[in-house]
């Protein structure tokens, strides 16, 4: 049971990570900066609960706002460029953040033990959950309240005018601006929203794994962040969830019994998925099938 809950938590965290990239992807911008925001979120929340002994809720909220604000600041210069340049710029950004935490040393002594981020040694013993006797089930409920709230908000904005505007920008920037849409504002707000979500999920992630170091926040994390929405399809938020279940549930955990061949299959299945479903596993075609299935 414990194990399934843990898996569900992981899925929740990664779903939020994916959704943080989802919004910006709709505007046609490909950003790998999510890893950076995620890192900022997780370190901030962890420092707040471990060093300043905050309660976890304000801690993750603070993490969320900090990451969101950072995204806002990064958005303006970053979104002047697009395409490959944006990809590289955002990779560079998240590498920069990673190197910042990799050099961050902030040790305080509490009842005889040194705690806090310790540069390349990482940041161990973020044990808020177990110290406060949270059962894994409680953790799951706690975590998924956030996931559901986030999914709800994204779903809602997706079906409101803002969603339409985001997609419009993604489809034809010239036409969008000539019906009066301010591209910069739209893109930057999408990025900021993404930053908020990434920061939130990072804050929760830190307490889930109890130990952070720079290895967790490499470019690969950013790649996964965009992989989920792309693999799932940008038609709606459940695509991302489906993709996360596909990757975390199926490829990473589900295929364990394959031993050495698991990771080979991992890459292979991603390639196949993109070849057979370039618009995502959860594209209109799939949705159509599902609708029929439900009707039957």
């Amino acid at each position: 049971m414990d194990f399934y809950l843990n898996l569900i938590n992981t899925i929740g965290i990664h779903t939020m990570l994916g959704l943080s990239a989802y919004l910006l992807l709709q505007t046609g911008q490909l950003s790998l900066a999510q890893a950076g925001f995620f890192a900022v979120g997780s370190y901030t929340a962890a420092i707040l609960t471990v060093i300043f002994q905050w309660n976890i809720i304000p801690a993750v909220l603070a993490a969320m706002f900090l990451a969101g604000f950072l995204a806002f600041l990064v958005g303006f210069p970053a979104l002047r460029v697009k395409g490959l340049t944006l990809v590289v710029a955002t990779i560079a950004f998240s590498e920069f953040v990673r190197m910042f935490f990799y050099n961050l040393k902030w040790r305080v002594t509490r009842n005889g033990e040194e705690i806090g981020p310790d540069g390349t040694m990482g940041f161990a013993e973020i044990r808020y959950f177990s110290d406060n006797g949270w059962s894994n089930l409680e953790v799951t409920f706690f975590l998924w309240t956030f996931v559901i709230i986030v999914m709800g908000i994204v779903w809602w904005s997706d079906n409101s005018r803002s969603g339409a505007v985001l997609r419009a920008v993604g489809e034809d920037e010239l036409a969008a601006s000539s019906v009066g849409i301010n591209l910069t504002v739209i893109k930057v707000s999408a990025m900021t929203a993404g930053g908020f979500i990434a920061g939130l999920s990072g804050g929760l992630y830190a307490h889930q794994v109890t130990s952070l170091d720079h290895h967790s926040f490499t470019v690969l994390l950013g790649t996964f962040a965009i992989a989920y929405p792309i693999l799932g399809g940008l038609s709606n938020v459940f695509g991302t969830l489906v993709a996360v279940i596909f990757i975390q549930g199926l490829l990473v955990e589900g295929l364990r019994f394959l031993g050495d061949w698991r990771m080979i299959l991992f890459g292979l299945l991603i390639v196949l998925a993109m070849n057979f479903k370039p618009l995502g596993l959860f594209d209109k075609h799939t949705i159509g099938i599902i609708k029929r299935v439900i009707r039957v």
Partner: protein
Amino acid sequence: MKHLSKLMGASLLLIALSIPQSAIYAAPSLKVLGWGAKSGPLKSFGVNSEAALRSAVAEINSAGGVRMGDGSMAPMEVIGYEDSACKKDEAIAILRKTASTTDAIVGMGTTCSGVCQAMFGVLQKKVEDTSDSGVQMPILADTCIRPGLAKISEWSFRNVPNEITMYDELFKWLRTAYPNVKTFTGGSETDQGHSFITYTAIIVQMAVKHGFEWVGPAVPALGPKVKQGMKELQAAAKSQHWLMGDTNYTVQARKIKKQNADMILVASHPFSACGFMKEMKRQRIKPKLLVGLTSSASQETLNGCMSAAEGIIIPTGFAPITPEAKKANNIVSKAGGFLDLHSSAAWENAYLVKRAVERAAIMGRPDTLQQDRRNFRNALASISSQKGLIGPLTRDGSTGEAEKPYVYVQVVNGKWKVIHDPNS
């Protein structure tokens, strides 16, 4: 949402498949589950440790197995060896899986320090602390050598040489063995926690302690107190360090060449250690002594740069010097693994488990699982000394830090050769 539940169902089914179906074994047996990196760059860790663990267990069973609580002898059984890929999230998932879905008495893994740091954090900190909802599962790690991990949880155990004493002894011996070596310098890979902290906080300190003279960038008062002047050292020697993934070591090598020391410390894993030593060779840097990091006392170093590594001296927790060690070495090599300081720990762990089980009177029944694990943990904690492959393993009950015999090996003509055994 039907499709979702379907997909969920499918993946859960697969996950269920992936769980060792230990229930089907009728005869009572003592179950353990291991894990390590079986994918990714550190794959060799997992492969070697699995080979060692499985063959050690086979040995134990052919010798009659383990005595259970009811006095009967039962075979020991490795119900699986999972791939944690040296990633925190995966290791934690496996840990929870082992604890909640299998009836393994103990989890045996892993080798990567960073991963242990995360896994141990998930465990309950203090055994009797009921307010702590951490996982209650004894973990017996092979290596996880990074200093200070033991204190994270009382459920966590490591079988690892104590690097502090290891290097302490090493330099003490070098002092006498190489009287003409006076000065030293060196470098490390800063993105690998273990390499870096060991280098700055231990290796350099111990060298200074035993009267070697640091000729690197000026650092106020290094050693002999452990960690003394560590920060200054880290700051000062920045530009003679490197990263694990680096490709160009010219600058570092030249900095070190200029210092022209008698002894050079190369504190990093084979990946970059080899690159750096090759660059040293190119720039014709020939120190009187070359000292390395424990982790590179392995086959990988020979694969990577046999000739450049010629002459490097490394303290390690394993070498085929005793009959047992030789025997184990042969068996494991037949099983397709190499026995080095990491995997030899896995071998010894199997025997540690046997001993602890026989102390703890394990019933090995599903209904007694929790109790068994707890007893096992206490028994394991109470073991202060155990016969290892090359000498006694000891463990300091108060700090939880393990002590393990070690020898000094050197690359001679492309082979690891034991040059000194402090215990003898």
